[in-house]
């Protein structure tokens, strides 16, 4: 009998249990209950989010595959397709930072190559608590080396991403990993167990007891007692995954595979039921045939293990031998464990006994969807009120402080631990607004970026969602790329709380609105709820991964100034906005106000103007204005130039000086162009009705900003550079 405690252990409600009984026509046994528990978990079943995710636009001219598969697929011409998706591995990374992050990378890589694509890039969005706390440093160090350890060995370059710090992540860090793959358009594979009588093949690593109930764990809040959950975290073997990649791609190229799915969350359970449900078939497997690395495993353990580096493959019986040969060539197991049936049921045998017999449709498609109550939190109105801060007496000092803020400072400490050049395609290295990958033999190229601003989303979830999309697209525009597709990772607190649900709904609607405006489809993604420890939720953190297409890689501008004596042009307008800024947070310890206003129509025009100027070959440097405002953006252009070229900028806007320097008004891009081209860029902007003006010139060894005839910033580039460069490494210096 299934008692209340067993149900609670499986994170199922009594109502859900009753539904299971109705669906299968009897009481489930414990193994079957385990199966429903993981498949109906928030992580796999999307039960709180489904009704809202429908709001995303999912169609567009580039889309080959939208949401619902392992990853989204876009057609980029020349017979090629881009396959991409983002996933979270937040909970495991808190419990066991190295393995949690490593297997996060491993999981998303498999999602990509299971579709027939070779992973060509990884980007990560990481969020931790402040670095003055040793616990947060230890988590960050573990996460970064986990990503590095897995990705580097596998041989995929980690080309970009973002790292932010806020106290709300101290007990709930965020690790979101986005992978981009490249495939031949006519060689894509889906997770379908088609064709009754076809063989079901288990390939890859052996099954152990690791990771049992990982998905269920990711679907609950944490209390103080997280130590005992460590065995729920999987252990990664990037070497095995590399072999699995090569073997799978080879079997695919030789046309030996009907359908394939990786065993990620919920392992064998998820892959068997989903593949059968999607094809409208059933499946029969014998657990005695599953390669196991531990003795005495029960059906429950085998079915729910989340051991890594495993694949489930459906193949025609006459092709099994050749398929096995390929896997053996790569020193991997590949064994037939069952067959596809036509009765719509998953039947699992163990020691000659039928231990599971359930309809796959019930498990996969009939997971309840909840329209959970949503209520605007009481604090929202309170925090949106902001008194203007007092004008600081020393703006140079404030400028230096901002440059050294870990949210703004150089992230080289992180990305130089990642191999970001393997596969020899990385044309723009980490640190720029977006990463650029060349496509060998072609003029066109790919740009990619991850972006999200949790503080904005906390203050105003709808606008935060919009800005995340706008800013990601702006990052792409700075590389001359047009956005073609979106994946997103939605990190939120406990959806059973109406306040969290309100944040979620608002953010989704904001993202959907912006995506429609930019005409970019959402092709998939991931929802991570229950990001709370001890009842304290994280800030709502939607992270957007957007892929862009570049016509001509030779025209991509650099993120840093290229030469002295070039004109600096500002596209967009400066406004007096303080809300949600890093300036306010760092200098006045206030996380308040309304995030900067955003007009999607204006934003789109600014980006289009930037893109056209780049395509015309006029732009030498392009960088978007974001955290830290105009002053920080200019400084970053100086720091990223190989000779650290300074600048002199003169501004006359009638707004407060501190807002002009550090306010985070949207829809602004800095360009540096040859002097003779400045006029052409301004003309282009005027034609497109985009505000644009020459604000200064590159050159010298200083950063100088004038406001209405008065010099307000006067700092040696080298001084700012050292503050920016050394900030994060200084936290990790080995104390002697």
């Amino acid at each position, binding site marked *: 009998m299934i008692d209340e405690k067993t149900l609670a252990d499986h994170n199922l409600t009594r109502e859900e249990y009753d539904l299971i009984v109705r669906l299968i026509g009897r009481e489930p046994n414990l193994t079957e209950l385990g199966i429903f528990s993981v498949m109906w978990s928030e992580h796999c079943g999307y039960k709180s989010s489904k009704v809202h995710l429908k709001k995303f636009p999912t169609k567009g001219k580039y889309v080959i595959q939208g949401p619902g598969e392992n990853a989204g697929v876009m057609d980029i011409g020349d017979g090629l397709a881009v396959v991409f998706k983002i996933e979270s591995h937040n909970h495991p990374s808190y419990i066991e930072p190295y393995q949690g992050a490593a297997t996060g990378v491993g999981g998303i890589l498999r999602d990509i190559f299971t579709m027939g694509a070779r992973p060509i890039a990884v980007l990560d969005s990481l969020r931790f608590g402040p670095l003055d706390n040793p616990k947060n440093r230890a988590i960050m160090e573990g996460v970064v080396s986990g990503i590095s350890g897995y990705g*580097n060995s*596998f041989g995929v370059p980690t080309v970009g991403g973002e790292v932010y710090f806020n106290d709300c992540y101290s007990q709930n860090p965020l690790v979101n990993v986005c992978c981009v793959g490249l495939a031949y358009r006519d060689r894509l594979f889906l997770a379908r167990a088609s064709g009754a009588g076809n063989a079901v093949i288990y390939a890859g690593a052996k099954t152990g007891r690791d990771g049992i109930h990982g998905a269920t764990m990711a679907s609950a809040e944490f209390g103080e007692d997280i130590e005992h959950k460590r065995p729920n975290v999987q252990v990664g073997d990037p070497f095995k995954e590399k072999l699995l990649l090569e073997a799978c791609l080879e079997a695919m190229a030789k046309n030996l595979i009907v359908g394939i799915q990786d065993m990620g969350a919920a392992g064998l359970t998820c892959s068997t039921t989903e593949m059968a449900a999607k094809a409208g078939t059933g499946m029969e497997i014998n657990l005695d045939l599953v390669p196991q690395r531990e003795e005495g495993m029960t059906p429950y353990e085998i079915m729910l293990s989340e051991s890594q580096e495993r694949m489930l493959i459906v193949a025609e019986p006459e092709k099994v031998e050749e398929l096995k040969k390929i896997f053996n060539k790569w020193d991997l197991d590949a064994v037939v464990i069952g067959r596809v049936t036509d009765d719509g049921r998953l039947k699992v045998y163990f020691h000659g006994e039928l231990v599971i017999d359930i309809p796959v449709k019930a498990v996969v498609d009939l997971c309840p969807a909840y329209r959970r109550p949503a209520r605007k939190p009481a604090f929202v109105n309170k925090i949106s009120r902001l008194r203007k801060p007092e004008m600081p007496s020393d703006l140079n000092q404030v400028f230096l402080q901002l440059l050294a803020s870990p949210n703004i400072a150089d992230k080289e400490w992180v990305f130089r631990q990642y191999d970001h050049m393997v596969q020899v395609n990385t044309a723009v290295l980490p640190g720029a607004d977006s990463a650029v990958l060349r496509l060998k033999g072609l003029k066109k190229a790919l740009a990619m970026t991850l972006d999200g601003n949790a503080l904005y989303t906390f203050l105003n979830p709808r606008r935060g969602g919009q800005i995340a999309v706008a800013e990601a697209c702006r990052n792409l525009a700075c590389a001359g790329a047009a956005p073609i597709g979106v994946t997103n990772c939605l990190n939120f607190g406990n959806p059973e709380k109406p306040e969290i649900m309100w944040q979620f709904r608002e953010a989704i609607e904001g993202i959907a609105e912006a995506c429609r405006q930019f005409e970019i489809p959402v092709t998939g993604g991931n929802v991570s709820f229950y990001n709370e420890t001890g009842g304290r939720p994280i800030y709502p953190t939607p992270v957007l991964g957007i892929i862009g297409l570049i016509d001509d890689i030779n025209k991509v501008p650099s993120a840093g100034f290229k030469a002295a004596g070039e004109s600096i042009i500002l596209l967009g307008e400066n406004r007096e906005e303080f809300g949600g800024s890093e300036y306010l947070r760092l200098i006045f310890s206030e996380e308040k106000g309304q995030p900067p206003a955003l007009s999607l129509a204006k934003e789109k025009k600014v980006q289009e103007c930037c893109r056209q100027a780049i395509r015309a070959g006029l732009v030498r440097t392009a960088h978007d204005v974001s955290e830290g405002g105009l002053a920080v953006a200019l400084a970053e252009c100086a720091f990223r130039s190989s000779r650290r070229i300074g600048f002199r900028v003169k501004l006359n806007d009638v707004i407060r000086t501190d807002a002009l320097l550090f306010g985070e008004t949207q829809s602004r891009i800095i360009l540096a162009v040859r002097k003779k081209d400045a006029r052409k860029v301004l003309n282009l902007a005027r034609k497109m009705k985009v505000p644009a003006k020459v604000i200064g010139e590159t050159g010298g060894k200083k950063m100088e900003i004038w406001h209405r005839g008065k010099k307000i910033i006067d700092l040696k580039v080298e001084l700012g550079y050292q503050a920016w460069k050394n900030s994060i490494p200084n936290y990790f210096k080995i104390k002697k």
Partner: protein
Amino acid sequence: MKFGVVVFPGSNCDYDTFHALQNVMGQETVFLWHKDHDLQQVDCVVLPGGFSYGDYLRSGAIARFSPIMQEVKKFAEDGGLVLGICNGFQILLESGLLPGAMLRNKNLKFLCQYVNIRIENDRTAFTGAGRKGQVLRIPIAHFDGNYYAPPELLEELERNNQILFRYCDEKGNLTGEANVNGSLHHIAGIVNRKGNVMGMMPHPERASEKILGSEDGKIIFQSIINYLEKKKGKKSPGRTVSRPISPLPPLIGTF
């Protein structure tokens, strides 16, 4: 000339190296599978970067036992040119084809970044196209690149001009800061006594195209080509085959 790039399980710069040799340098290039004994009559064997066999024991420690390495050893003994890049260098050390050993980087972190290296000896098969003192900008990507050798051995390497590259700053000065992984005597690459086996930690294949940020790596490949042409008394056909370059690698290896 004909180059062979060895593929171990876990090699991940195999195609990068193949691409640089075939598509950039215009040379005939083949993959050599680790389970094979056939070197396919290549003029130069390249051991590429990566994590051969996962590198779970010690970098390069397992690869030396593979069937293909038995042939590579014979090939080297007979005077054939062998180039080991990154993990390939580590494998050459583990195989005893080059002297010394690698320790973890001094900061105990994986390092992926551009470095500057100075050519110390331009009279070898691997550096002939450069000149002594020339500074090359080439990336590294490794965890274990901190070269170690006992004092007698270091002295011997110095005496015989076996040190081909040293980490330096952009002007060629041997500063402590430039020696990012902590290698003794700033060693980034060495050659054996006979001059036909070379190992280097930086990745020349990652610095062979302008679009990637540097073309300095081509000097190493060009040196090999020049040397072989002179030795064989014939010109390399060069870039005669202009097949379209595929954005995706081909299938690798045999049963």
